[in-house]
């Protein structure tokens, strides 16, 4: 059935080019895949489909992952000063500082003194309910 289609398409010329373009597109997208997935059309087609599905899903996941990474960095940065992330954000909320987590994580990484002042502002606004975090004795700057 498939062979007959092929012979027909080779004589017609229209379907042949359509299939060929599809194949080329797939192999172009399959560059760098492992094993036969970059060479053999049957396997490559499956993997490319999967890859496109993953990339669709991960374009949405990336936003979540980046935010969680920012939160982890801010948490680490504030714990160096004896405040944990939750109390810190609550303090900022009270002071109506609307810096987002991306900027805060950048500050905690590259601008330590600015970040320390932010932590102090937050601590004044919201001293925290319990003694959650003990700051390390030596603050490495």
């Amino acid at each position, binding site marked *: 059935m498939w062979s007959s289609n092929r012979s027909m398409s080779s004589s017609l010329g229209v379907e042949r080019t359509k299939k060929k373009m599809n194949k080329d597109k797939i192999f172009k997208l399959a560059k760098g895949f492992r094993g036969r997935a970059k060479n053999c059309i049957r396997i490559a087609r499956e993997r490319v489909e999967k890859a496109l599905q993953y990339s669709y899903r991960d374009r949405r996941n990336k936003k979540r992952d980046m935010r969680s*990474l920012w939160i*982890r*960095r801010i948490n680490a940065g504030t714990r*160096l000063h004896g405040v944990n992330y939750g109390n810190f954000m609550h303090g900022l909320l009270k002071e109506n500082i609307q810096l987002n987590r991306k900027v805060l*994580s950048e500050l905690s990484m590259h601008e330590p003194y600015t970040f320390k002042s932010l932590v102090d502002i937050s601590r004044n606004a919201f001293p925290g309910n319990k003694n959650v975090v*003990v700051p390390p*004795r030596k603050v*490495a700057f």
Partner: protein
Amino acid sequence: MKMVTAFNGNMKKAAAGLRRINLDGLRWRVFDAKGQILGRLASQIATVVQGKDKPTYTPNRDDGDMCIVLNAKDVCVTGRKLTDKIYYWHTGYVGHLKQRNLKDQMAKDPTEVIRKAVLRMLPKNKLRDDRDRKLRIFPGSEHPFGDRPLEPYEMPPRSVREMRPRARRAMVRAQKKAEQQQQNADGKKGKNEEAQEESA
């Protein structure tokens, strides 16, 4: 003064793989396990070894500090875990599920207890082996890294919950028993002294 002579046998193991860890911008943190609870200590070590206490944490790069744990044989557990906590492992052959409890493991190799605890708390990914290489555990309080810039790690203060009534009563009873035994011993000693005085 280097303490190399203290463990000539373990020097290879202690300094093993140090070359593989590049980036010596890392700190050397020292944990003292004496009197610490096993799991709570292990979770602190795991956060430090992952590098999660640094604001430059990146998940695809291993940036944790070198952790040295001392006095591994003095780590404590609560409850009946000394006899009841069992480590299982399967050798791969059918029916060969082996086990060993905490007491035997401490007798055999006390560093393995902490190492297992920390390793099982790390995320199971490709960086786990590298992080394992950053962990150095010593049963005693001596280590060959005396010439590095070491930083002691302060454990966060722990709120110990108060004893359950039954445990408290048992403890009180044990205390009273100990006091009675002491009194008996004193009484006997007193009698012995009197007997000696009488004889002499």
